[in-house]
């Protein structure tokens, strides 16, 4: 009660005594090219005040805590700087950022739940920013994540450094966060990429390796943290429209429609700050005819973010995101001769999804050494599968709630403490999974030591308790340790070890269906234990002549009790059944290396990455299913004046082991057919802002070679696709 009174008093004092209106406006440009930097982060340290630059590189902050303040300006690919400013809204200051040939200076938050530069992080991380997402015409986050080194997809299931295979739509060994809060479906525990507002993304941080010491269940193979944009201080209207078409199938046997298959969509968004309140809202529609029969898509989504600054040191943000989607239910092909037609029985079935999530976030800076925040998120998911005559074949509804309170204490320059407490609850009502409730609770503690300027270490531990009502309680303790050493400028060595775990989802525990297309039934597996992993990594980064960088990391993960489906005869049920079991002990070893360089005053950039995975079942000696051994990516980008363009090339070696049982039982005709993946994407764009038109026009060609491959058995990936995009802001 006392605490509540203090909290209310703080709010009212902020309302009654409004803040002084010190403001500053400016423009952030590239030091080398003098061109505006879009999406640069501008914020006042130790406060909740901040914004990002618009399409012209401009920003304004109207509620500086004092007439003299310090701004920290950062952008991906540039060195962050601190700038002392004086309040004067009449003058537009110009801030120049020097580009960094690599991302080592980029500010990230995921590794240690606080802001720090990438070179301070003791684990491997990759970042993609809004510019990359936009330039690749990504419609969903997974489209953009395919360009991350060491990452591949089994259609919609993400795999970081071979940590995950394909788990048939239940469970994910990669944890998805949006602004630091988990966004996994309460029933299946899978990532729903379409729930993420793609056009509101500031950047996506990908943490490679176990992250359960901070993030708990699910962070077995890595963490994806999607960070949304700050609200612009000035009125900003953004729009985007795109239209594309698929090339005709390469073979006559595959042609199933006389019509050209199109995709198109529109996005509009508006944001502005009114005194202490900032509002950002947007709507997005996307339609896709689909390149396969019954693979169409209709999706409508909306986004609303409201931020209220009680004072320079307190802020409250409410965000809601929702979408309604209907799509054809293409599960696998009829056979390779009819690769773009669904198997008999799937034809004309559809899946309708309605999902939304609400997030409330309160931030408080007590002083420059003590700050923290409280986040509450509710993720609702409902989907149902219907046949042509609208007969309901399957339906599931779930709600996932998470509360996370975190505090940071800067004890001194050498010691930073982070503590937190987390509670979560999942409620499921489903035809397939039944009606169930699970609850969880966690405590975490982390300490970062800086022994010397060039040597630091991080130690942390998290205690988790998870219980599905009616089942036994699971307790987990997951520690981590990491260190970073810079022997000299431009050179960084890092090492880390951490434990990860994933509690089985309600879907895995309670799935029960006879709708398998065969006489076999799937039965509940309530005895499942959590999966575990120990991840080790050692790596280093070396800058070369200020224009190039080499990074290499060696890693190993020892996985135990991996959950996999098995086919068995059940004497009690008098039937053949599929149930999940903790059966696999596995080891994944490998290395990942990358080279990034820039030339011609950094107008031309080149990047190449290679990832090798040796992922074996330690009991059978066989390679783990759905894991590629080699992943290579290269990118060449050129930017000059108003034009930019680039070529991406991705290679993923042929997956060596697949699920033979799935092919037999489904059955998936020719399901064993798969090849190495070679994908070339080309893009060219012109930013007409500099000649007076606030429009960016681009052409993307995905899969230029029109190469036919599968990411998941029985599913041909998209053929060559042309997409024209126009976007702008006012």
């Amino acid at each position, binding site marked *: 009660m006392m605490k509540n009174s203090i909290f209310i008093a703080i709010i009212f004092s902020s309302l009654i005594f409004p803040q002084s209106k010190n403001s500053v406006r400016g423009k952030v440009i590239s030091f080398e090219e003098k061109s505006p930097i879009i999406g640069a982060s501008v914020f006042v340290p130790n406060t909740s005040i901040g914004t990002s630059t618009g399409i012209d590189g401009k920003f304004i902050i109207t509620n500086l805590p004092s007439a003299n303040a310090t701004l920290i300006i950062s952008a991906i690919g540039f060195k962050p700087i601190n700038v002392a400013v004086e309040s004067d809204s009449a003058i537009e200051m110009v801030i120049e950022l020097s580009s960094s040939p690599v991302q080592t200076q980029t500010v990230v938050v995921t590794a240690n739940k606080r802001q720090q530069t990438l070179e301070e992080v003791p684990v491997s991380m990759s970042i993609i920013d809004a510019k990359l997402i936009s330039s690749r015409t990504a419609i969903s986050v997974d489209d953009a994540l395919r360009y991350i080194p060491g990452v591949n997809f089994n259609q919609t299931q993400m795999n970081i450094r071979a940590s995950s295979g394909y788990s048939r739509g239940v469970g994910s060994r990669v944890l998805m966060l949006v602004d630091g809060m988990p966004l996994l479906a309460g029933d299946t525990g899978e990532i729903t990429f379409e729930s993420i507002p793609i056009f509101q993304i500031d950047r996506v941080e990908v943490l490679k390796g176990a992250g359960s010491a901070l993030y708990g269940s699910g962070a077995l193979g890595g963490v994806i943290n999607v960070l949304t944009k700050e609200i612009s201080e000035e009125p900003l209207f953004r729009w985007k429209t795109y239209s594309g078409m698929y090339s005709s199938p*390469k*073979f006559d*046997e*595959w042609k199933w429609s006389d019509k050209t298959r199109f995709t198109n969509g529109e996005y509009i968004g508006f944001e502005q700050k009114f005194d202490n309140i900032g509002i950002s809202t947007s709507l997005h529609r996307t339609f896709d005819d689909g390149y396969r029969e019954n693979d169409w898509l209709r999706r409508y989504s909306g986004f609303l973010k409201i931020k209220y600054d009680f004072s320079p040191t307190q802020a409250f943000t409410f965000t809601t995101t929702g979408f309604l989607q209907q799509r054809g239910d293409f599960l696998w092909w009829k*056979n*390779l*001769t009819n*690769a773009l037609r669904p198997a008999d029985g799937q034809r004309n079935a559809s899946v309708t999804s309605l999902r939304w999530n609400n997030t409330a976030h309160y931030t408080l800076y007590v002083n420059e050494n003590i700050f923290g925040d409280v986040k509450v998120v509710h993720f609702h998911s409902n989907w149902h599968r219907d046949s042509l005559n609208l007969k309901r074949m399957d339906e599931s509804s779930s709600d996932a709630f998470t509360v996370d309170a975190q505090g940071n204490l800067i004890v001194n320059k050498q010691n930073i403490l982070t503590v937190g407490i987390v509670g979560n609850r999942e409620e499921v009502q489903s035809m397939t999974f039944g009606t169930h409730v699970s609850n969880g609770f966690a405590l975490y503690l982390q300490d970062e030591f800086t022994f010397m300027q060039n040597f630091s270490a991080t130690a942390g531990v998290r205690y988790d308790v998870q219980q599905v009502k009616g089942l036994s309680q699971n307790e987990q303790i997951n520690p981590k340790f990491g260190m970073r050493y810079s022997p000299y400028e431009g050179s960084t060595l890092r090492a880390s070890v951490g434990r990860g775990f994933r509690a089985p989802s309600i879907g895995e525990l309670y799935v029960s269906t006879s709708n398998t*297309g*065969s*006489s076999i039934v799937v039965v509940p597996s309530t005895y499942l234990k959590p999966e575990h992993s120990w991840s080790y990594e050692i790596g280093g980064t070396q800058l070369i002549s200020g224009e*190039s960088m080499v990074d290499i990391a060696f890693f190993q993960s020892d996985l135990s009790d991996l959950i996999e489906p098995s*086919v*068995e*005869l059940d*004497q009690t049920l*008098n*039937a*053949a059944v599929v149930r999940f079991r903790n059966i696999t002990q596995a080891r994944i070893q490998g290395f990942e290396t990358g080279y990034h*360089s820039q*030339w*011609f*005053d950094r*107008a031309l950039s*080149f990047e*190449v990455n290679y990832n090798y995975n040796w992922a074996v079942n330690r009991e059978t000696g066989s390679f783990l299913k759905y894991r590629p051994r080699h992943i290579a990516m*290269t990118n*060449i980008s050129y930017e*000059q004046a108003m034009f930019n363009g680039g070529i991406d*090339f991705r290679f993923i070696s042929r997956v060596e082991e697949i699920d*033979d*049982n799935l092919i*037999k*039982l*489904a*059955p998936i*005709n*020719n399901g*064993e*057919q*798969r*090849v*190495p993946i*070679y994908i*070339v994407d080309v893009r060219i764009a012109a930013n007409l802002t500099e000649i007076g038109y606030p429009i960016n026009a681009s052409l993307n060609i995905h899969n230029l*070679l*029109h*190469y*036919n*491959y*599968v990411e998941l058995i029985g599913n*041909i990936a998209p053929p060559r696709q042309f997409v024209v995009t126009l976007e702008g802001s006012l």
Partner: protein
Amino acid sequence: MKVLNRSHLKNTQSMSFRDTKHREISILFLIIKTRFLTSFGMTIKFTFEIVSDICYFIIFIFLVLVGCDKGLTPVSNTVISPGFSGTITYKSPFPPTDSLIDLRIVAVPYYPVDTLFQDILLKVFSGEIAYSPNKLSTLDSGATASYEMLVTPKTYYYIAVVQQYGPSTFSQWRVVGVYGYSLASPTPKTVIVTDNKFISGINIDVDFYNLPPQPFK
């Protein structure tokens, strides 16, 4: 505007392209590089060695792409997918529905003599014994139904149609037709399935009331 002069080219050539096997590529590379630089008027700040290496890599990637195949093709379907097909001819009336719970084809890579049926089932689910994934269609008696089965390449000594006649999945099965079996020729015919081979004409007669010898205990 700076352009590459002869000495640059000569120097680069002497340093990086000595291998005669790559002479053509190196000339192509120099033309591309020279045109690229002159057309965009860039200041030359880089070292030729690094750019040469990178361009070699790009050319290598290009050659890989040009040389690689086009991925999956429908032709693969007819070449691969070992299996067999044929017809099931029902020689007798169907039994009552409550004694025709299921009807499948099994392909056994040995002669199942005096085998516990549960052992057969275990081998079915372990993949050692192939079986048709769906219940066979039961049309009117006297009719002929076609079937296809994809199987692991091996020699199958016993291909049969089996009927589940009661509720027990583990015990209430019987053989109602065997490939190659007749009273005149009671030895089942062997089918050899190899890689990239799909065999047709594996026709089986089914008579629910005149059963072939039962191999199960």
